[in-house]
């Protein structure tokens, strides 16, 4: 077990080194053509940098907040406390996990570092997944911003219910799998035996340093996720999604795919969805608001810090099937 891990990590390191070397060689050989190409597309390069920095800077405070919460959880909350509050029962645990977001109102950038720590404290993978998927929508700030965009009405209620149902069902699907198939070994193995390391006696400083380590661990996923999301935004015109989006089914597919590539923060996506309100059926907007806030290019990249690759595929596909069918159903019911 350990040997394969060492092998993996060695491979990972070699990959980084060879990537950097390859990049260096390519840069040297193609210096002139690259410079010409960059100059040719300097508008697009500037656009890329602007959007990337926009996504990153906007997410940064929330990632840091998540890392701080994770650090303080590690130091101040004992596993017994967690197990006292989370029901042992499989179904109840998943149901409760989905509600944690209500007392911890951050979107996914702040949820991933926390869920990693909760896993180390003994939370079941399924409950953690329902927390992760529900928290971007089931929190006070997002509910209020949705209501500000659409008014207190069907859209708010439908978004919250659809999101919770999707999160819980996905959690239940995952509860049938062995934890080892879902989580990366370093997440479950409780390696962070911090007693072995000498820490400052003051818990506060220990928590801050742990938060810093967690932040460093996560920030690279945020950077890669933001780069990928920006690339998708710059390369794929929005009209591509909107041109074929007719009817109750295709409109759902189009809006959900658009949300996947946009990787917006769930706090504001309601206002963006509102911009599409006159062109799309309400179910399509719901797909945008529910699927998009759970699963996006940025989120999926951040999931890679915690989940196995196989589990990530399921983590995309199960919410996709559930939320898309709910949205299509909503479209059909709304018409009558």
């Amino acid at each position: 077990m350990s040997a394969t891990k060492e092998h993996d990590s060695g491979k990972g390191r070699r990959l980084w080194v060879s990537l950097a070397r390859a990049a260096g060689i390519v840069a040297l050989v193609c210096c002139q053509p690259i410079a010409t190409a960059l100059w040719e597309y300097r508008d697009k390069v500037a656009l890329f940098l602007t959007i990337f920095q926009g996504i990153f800077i906007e997410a940064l405070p929330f990632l840091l907040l998540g890392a701080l919460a994770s650090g303080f959880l590690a130091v101040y909350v004992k596993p017994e406390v967690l197990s006292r509050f989370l029901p042992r029962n499989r179904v109840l645990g998943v149901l409760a996990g989905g509600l944690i977001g209500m007392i911890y109102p951050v979107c996914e950038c702040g949820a991933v570092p926390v869920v990693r720590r909760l896993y180390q404290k003994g939370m079941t993978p399924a409950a953690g997944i329902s927390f992760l998927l529900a928290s971007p929508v089931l929190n006070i700030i997002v509910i209020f911003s949705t209501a500000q965009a659409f008014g207190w009405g069907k859209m708010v209620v439908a978004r919250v219910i659809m999101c919770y149902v999707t999160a819980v069902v996905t959690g239940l699907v995952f509860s049938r799998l062995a934890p080892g198939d879902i989580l990366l070994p370093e997440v479950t193995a409780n390696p962070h035996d911090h007693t072995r390391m000498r820490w400052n006696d003051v818990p506060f400083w220990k928590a801050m340093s742990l938060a810093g380590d967690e932040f460093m661990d996560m920030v690279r996923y945020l950077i890669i996720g933001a780069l990928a999301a920006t690339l998708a935004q710059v390369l794929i015109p929005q009209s591509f999604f909107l041109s074929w989006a007719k009817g109750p089914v295709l409109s759902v597919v189009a809006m959900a795919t658009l949300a996947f590539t946009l990787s917006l923060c769930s706090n504001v996506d309601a206002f963006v969805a509102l911009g599409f309100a006159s062109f799309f059926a309400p179910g399509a907007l719901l797909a945008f608001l529910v699927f998009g806030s759970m699963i996006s290019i940025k989120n999926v990249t951040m999931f890679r810090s915690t989940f196995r690759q196989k589990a990530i595929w399921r983590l995309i596909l199960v919410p996709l099937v559930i939320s898309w069918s709910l949205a299509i159903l909503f479209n059909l019911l709304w018409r009558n």
Partner: protein
Amino acid sequence: MKRSPTIVFLLGLAVFIIVRLATGQILLYLRAPMTGLLCATIFFLLLIVWSYGMQPEASPHTDQVDGDDSHDAHDHEHVHNEEACACGHGHGHDGDSDEIACACGCEHGTTWLKVGLMALPFVIGLLIPPQPLASSAMSNRSLNRVSSRSTRALPAAQENRADKNLYQWAMYLNDSGDPASVSGQAVRVTGFVYRDTRCGSNTFVVARFVMMCCAADASPVGFPVQWPDAVAFKKDEWVTVTGHFGVTILDKTPMPIINADSVQAVESPARPYLSPWGP
């Protein structure tokens, strides 16, 4: 020592945000109210760096992130088994069981190389002069796809119609759905010059981006402007257009158009984007 790459990265990130805040360039990326949150972010980044300074010197064996060897002083319990080192990150103990190991004092093998790669987008971002979203972003997005439901959050600029900005005009028109409803009304708006293939020598589009949160969600609003000397203005140049609304036929659909009385080149504004929540 082992934390140097981490500390340098965190400090660099703080400097990056301070530069963006101090120069006001942050307004090219974000809606303004994030500023307070970002100041808190800088504070906590520095606090984390400070907390690293408060930790006792790392014991020698936790130093081995890269597998470089200097473990002379094994004065502490030297546990090396699966449980102790299940962390799976780059500890680099290939073969030699004596070469430790548990760098899991949560130093997750952050090396100068990784930190350098992570910092790359920000270094490039600082080197290339930042530009607000403009014409190059228009081709990917649809014009005037804004809805008016959030008007509740808007200040009542509706009375004095000449003071409406591009966003407010776009919402007004989306609401009424009829370009004729504004025909003849006086208009005075500021935006950048945008041209698409349909623009002749005497038209350009005066456009501007509306931002809710960050550059990823910005969407453009704008109207075509009829002006005899339209070619005199370069794309992305900022102008203030004064005139009256009229109606033109484009692709067989009636469209509002601004018949300009004057077009003035202006400095690009410090806040290049409009916000649904006020100026």
